[in-house]
């Protein structure tokens, strides 16, 4: 049962990392446009000669 000393903190760390990632994504506005994001994933890349969309 000594394994608990490693596994329990490890599990909690992973959970907290997930929570932190969620809060970060929320703060950086990734949930502001869910419809648009769904389409952007499959949008074609810009042809090189055109001016790239600046972010």
């Amino acid at each position, binding site marked *: *049962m000594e394994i*608990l000393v490693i596994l*329990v903190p490890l*599990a*909690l760390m992973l*959970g*907290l990392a*997930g*929570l932190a990632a*969620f*809060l970060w994504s*929320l703060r950086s506005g990734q*949930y*502001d*446009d*869910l*419809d*648009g994001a769904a*389409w*952007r994933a*499959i*949008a*074609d890349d*810009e042809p090189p000669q*055109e*001016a*790239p*969309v*600046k*972010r």
Partner: protein
Amino acid sequence: MHVTRDFSHYVRAAGEGVQHIDLAVEGVHCAGCMAKIERGLSAMPDVTLARVNLTDRRVALEWKAGTLDPARFIDRLEELGYKAYPYETESAEATEVAESRFLLRCLGVAAFATMNVMMLSIPVWSGNASDMLPEQRDFFHWLSALIALPAAAYAGQPFFRSAWRALSAKTTNMDVPISIGVILALGMSVVETIHHAEHAYFDAAIMLLTFLLVGRFLDQNMRRRTRAVAGNLAALKAETAAKFVGPDEISQVPVAAIHPGDIVLLRPGERCAVDGTVIEGCSEIDQSLITGETLYVTAEQGTPVYAGSMNISGTLRVRVSAASEATLLAEITRLLDNALQARSRYMRLADRASRLYAPVVHATALITILGWVIAGASWHDAIVTGVAVLIITCPCALGLAIPTVQTIASGAMFKSGVLLNSGDAIERLAEADHVIFDKTGTLTLPNLEVTNAADIPAGIFDLAGRLALSSHHPVAAAVAQAAGAKSPVVGAVEEAGQGVRATLDGVEIRLGRPSFCGAEALVSGANLDPEASIVAFSKGPEKFILSVRQGLRPDAQAVIAALKARNIGIEILSGDREPAVKAAAHALGVPEWRAGVTPADKIARIEELKRRGAKVLMVGDGMNDAPSLAAAHVSMSPISAAHLSQATADLVFLGRPLAPVVAAIDASRKALHLMRQNLWLAIGYNVLAVPVAISGVVTPLIAAAAMSGSSILVMLNSLRARSRAREIV
């Protein structure tokens, strides 16, 4: 006179030498539009950011300060085929967005805690059956407490706050039993953990919060989305006014940048965006949006004009006054306030459910405790059982029953062109059994139409349309639109109050008053619609007359028939003259109608129907309808309605057809049916679970399973609101 467009009101600085503007864009609905707009705008030099938000239909733009005029973005979007207008976030929408984010953060925290506490609970549940050491169980309980207590303190805030507000106002709502349940469950679990007991309910308490937050978030998101759409529509109306910035210089500025005392220019064919008094000029104005009266009113020096009036013939200079000074508006506002107070007494289905629910649950818990003590159990065991009753009856499914249906039903309504202004409108609309329609702008289209276009040779009609493009008169605009005219006739001259004339291939063509075109004989000879405005068109010796009027909405008759088929009473209350209302009522087959009614009369009629027990749906658009919209049980406005009416109405419908009225009634009836069904499911669950809890055999495992089982069942049932509504007519 020099006219400039000035959008500086909407531009804000976004860091080092960069300026930012948000535009609402019409007609963006796919990835193609998104890419086209972003490429088109970022190809402009000095633009540093062009990003489309497809959910809210907006574009965020940033550029190097001082290099570009924001009006150029709008022109560029126009070239690309999109209508755009600067958008300013209203404070109401900003609050909704902030609230939505807060709920999502709470949901994230609660979901994280639920998952981790569950990870610790499952070994305990299985360990109770096998051979877990008590020390290990205690360790797992303490760990659960460490996760659940801070998470519940954070994620429970929306409920605790709302419960506290309700209690300090000496009422109760659904959040009171929720808060009591969660706090007691957590408190008892801590005490049990300290005493090395077998059962702790950290998992149940935090899971409850997670499920309820899902419901809360859905509810909030629905409201936020409606606000965003409504905000865009308001922006795209592009309400501007020509303000005098010098004695002879005018600037086209957004209405938000106009202050009392400013002087604005009102040209023929323009809708007035402000309240004020005419200081110079003479014209006829159309106040149908305000009073429902379709006859024009003469405006001269000293005449008050209200936002929403259309200027017909001459140019006016208007001094802007504060809205409160306008007597008509003041009267309407007073009626509106009274009506809104009456409305707020309506109790939502969820509140009614919780008002019954809370005392029953708390009494059951108390009786359980006393019952066990009388039966000889120790106080400790009795209280533990009582708290278990509270936990298992916690209104998890009840909290999801209504918001999930509301969210899905509002999505279905959105697809059929109806926007919800208030969440409880669905319940009220489902109960409506009597519909009152306003005539002007509601049963009829807000725009004028040429009714006898078929009688006129196509070539002549096209020519009349092209000539009409040179006039600002709204009737001419209607002719131009009906003819689909694109290129104006070169060298056309407008004679104020008469018409337009031009010479084409040596032949003189004229469009305007019959006397202007020498067509009086034609007019007196014909059997004409008394409601229509008559314009004449002459090409050399050939003369024609066009009859222009507000047409009925294309499907008005079918909608009235569909409402009758649903056993809903119908009547027309209009501020317009009797012949006009009578004609419309006859055409639609509505036996009950009243003409020339004032806003106060409309309210009186609604009150009378209310006393007879009818639930009235008021459909109207004019400012004169706003008080009656508020007084009715539930109300609807077309998107073309006056601002005040649109803000007051519970639902707003888009587009030319009237069909959304029936679609909304159908969708809401179905939704109410599902809400009731969900409440019964939730009650059924309690009826099954409570005896188990009272008997004292509930373990945390049973509580968790029952809670998630009932929540999932209710959510699945709500999804049925999505299925396509049957054809309405």
